[in-house]
């Protein structure tokens, strides 16, 4: 069963009642909200996501709700909650949807320490994955969005989840939040991409969410083997540069771009070492998305056979 099998009314009732159970890759969530605007966005953007079996343990219980008590009449706000706790300052009600999306990432980043969590986008084709470890602002979400609308499967735009037992990447194909200029860039690049409403003046500027292609969501339980590390950097008007990177440098860049490298200690060192050994690493500087996608397509074709 997927979210799309529920009518808008059923979805709203679940959100306002016991909660809407959703499966995002390795994680089961239960989302509650008494905000009508949130239900509308969720109905559009979560449509292809599966609901977990009723007998499955839910990992994170989150909510985005109007504050209780007097405050709800003073200012229209939305509070992000997890397990009945409200750790952050309230958001304006217009930003409820991006706030919940961000809150879910916060839950993953602070709780899923049984996995190595690289700060990295990831895509896959023919069973081989590219990881794009990068700092915010290097354009990994934009590049990743372009790739998943060009025949690659989305693993994640934010989390490189590595399973310690076998070094495989676990997909977490969540909505991709594009920021500011990237939104227009992607609209031009693939007019058919499903992009949600633009949320203005959030804590990160204007944000709009791209829904990953249905195939990526359907195959969310299919782990992928890492094959390449590509360190992207978007530079205005720069000519395409795609250069091999020494393994020692790549190692440092992966280890320093992780959410929990220190927490996993020796396991993290072992996993990153193995990945760097078995992957080829490149640095990519680009200004034009078509050129960048072309270079990565070429890379995957050249390694065939």
């Amino acid at each position, binding site marked *: 069963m997927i979210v799309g099998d529920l009518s808008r009314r059923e979805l709203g009732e679940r959100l306002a009642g016991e909660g809407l159970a959703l499966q995002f890759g390795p994680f089961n969530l239960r989302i509650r909200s008494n905000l009508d605007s949130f239900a509308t966005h969720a109905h559009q953007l979560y449509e292809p996501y599966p609901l977990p079996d009723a007998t499955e343990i839910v990992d994170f*219980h989150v909510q985005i709700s109007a504050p209780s008590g007097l405050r709800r009449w003073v200012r229209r706000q939305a509070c992000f909650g997890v397990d009945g706790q409200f*750790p952050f300052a309230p958001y304006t009600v217009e930003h409820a949807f991006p706030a919940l999306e961000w809150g879910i990432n916060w839950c993953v980043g602070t709780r899923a*320490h049984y996995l190595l969590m690289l700060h990295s986008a990831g895509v896959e084709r023919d069973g081989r994955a590219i990881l794009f470890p990068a700092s915010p602002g290097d354009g990994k979400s934009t590049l990743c969005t372009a790739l998943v609308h060009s025949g690659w499967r989305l693993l994640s735009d934010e989390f490189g989840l590595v399973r310690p037992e076998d070094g495989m990447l676990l997909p977490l194909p969540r909505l991709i939040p594009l920021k500011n200029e990237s939104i227009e860039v992607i609209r031009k690049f693939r007019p058919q991409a499903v992009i949600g409403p633009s949320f203005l003046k959030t804590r990160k500027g204007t944000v709009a969410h791209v829904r990953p292609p249905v195939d990526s969501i359907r195959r969310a339980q299919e782990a992928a083997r890492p094959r390449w590390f590509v360190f992207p950097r978007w530079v205005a008007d720069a000519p395409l540069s795609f250069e091999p990177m020494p393994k020692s440098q790549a190692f440092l860049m992966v280890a320093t771009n992780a959410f929990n490298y220190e*927490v996993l200690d020796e396991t993290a060192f072992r996993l990153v070492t193995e990945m760097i050994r078995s992957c080829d690493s490149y640095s990519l500087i680009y200004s034009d998305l078509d050129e960048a996608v072309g270079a990565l397509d070429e890379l995957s074709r050249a390694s065939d056979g």
Partner: protein
Amino acid sequence: MAKRDDPTRRARRLLLEALRAPEQLPALPPADWELLLRVARRARVLGRLESALDRANLLGKLPPRAAAHLRAARNVIEHRKTLISWEVNRLLWALKGIEVPLILLKGTGYLLAMLPPARGRIFADVDLLVPEERIGEIEERLVERGWFKTEIDPYDDRYYRVWMHEIPPLRHRERGTEIDIHHRLLPKTSHLKSDPAPLFAAARPLADPRLRVLAPADMVLHALVHLFLEGDPDEGLRLRDLVDVHDLLCHHGQEPGFWAGLAPRAHELGFQRPLFYGLRHAQRLFGTPIPADVLRGLADAAPAWPIGALMDRLIPLALLPGHPDHPSRLATLARWLIYVRAHWLRMPPGLLAKHLSHKAWLRFRGFRKRVDLAQLDLKQQ
């Protein structure tokens, strides 16, 4: 009313049964696991459940999702242990040449003395007890060697320095670990007298002779004083602290003379009331084996009838987390009452009124409590 209390009772029963009999956990149905994971996270005992199940070799028999959450807690705890041990190592380096005994308190002490409560316990920061007259020298040296005084407003700084039992926390520039330096176990303003001198005299040295931990009885008493007098109005009483006490009693209770000396030591330090409450509730909640004559010997430390009956009701309410989706108003009230009681014991009424009205003024003006993301992250385990 009874029906609405059901989820609360179910959450508490699950948590207590898990702590008391972890060997039963593999048989738990998934829906119960889901709730147990949530309340155990709130009470910060996920790591303890993991360590108990690991020792019983039962981790492989759990639902994979439950095992994953426990594994995550373990990984964070192991990492914190490394950080805290390293911070103590750096402290010893920084304080070289200053001849002062450092008594490691709470988690840091359990860890370095390799005591049972350290198993599966989360370690937030390093807690030290040092003689008050040496604090200036120690603080100055640490600031020279890379630690800095965390930024707090002048009111809070004065609050610490004039009234409290510790100085504002120090934090290392690169490592970010916090050090809390105490000179006594309770605020200077507290109703309970708390002369720290006997604690120093009885402290026991660790392998490195500059490091000490409190003597067994003092360690139990400190854990209880911390539990009952360092409340947080939202969190209530920290179940985690009572679990520590249970572990310490089971461990030190084997030592000859421990039980006979416990109540007299509590009288000497003025901590007989916290000991009375602690033993009573450890036994009620966890079935801690406590000799009957020790409890009888503490009968004179019990509060008078109406207060005693009230506290018997309030303490478990404030200790045990409820159901996260069905907050209980009664428990919220109990947590608040216990918090006010703790403050009442920490400060004389005039000062308390001044302090609380200052805090209320800040809230009214809209200053939210600063969200410390690092501390918040730790609470997710």
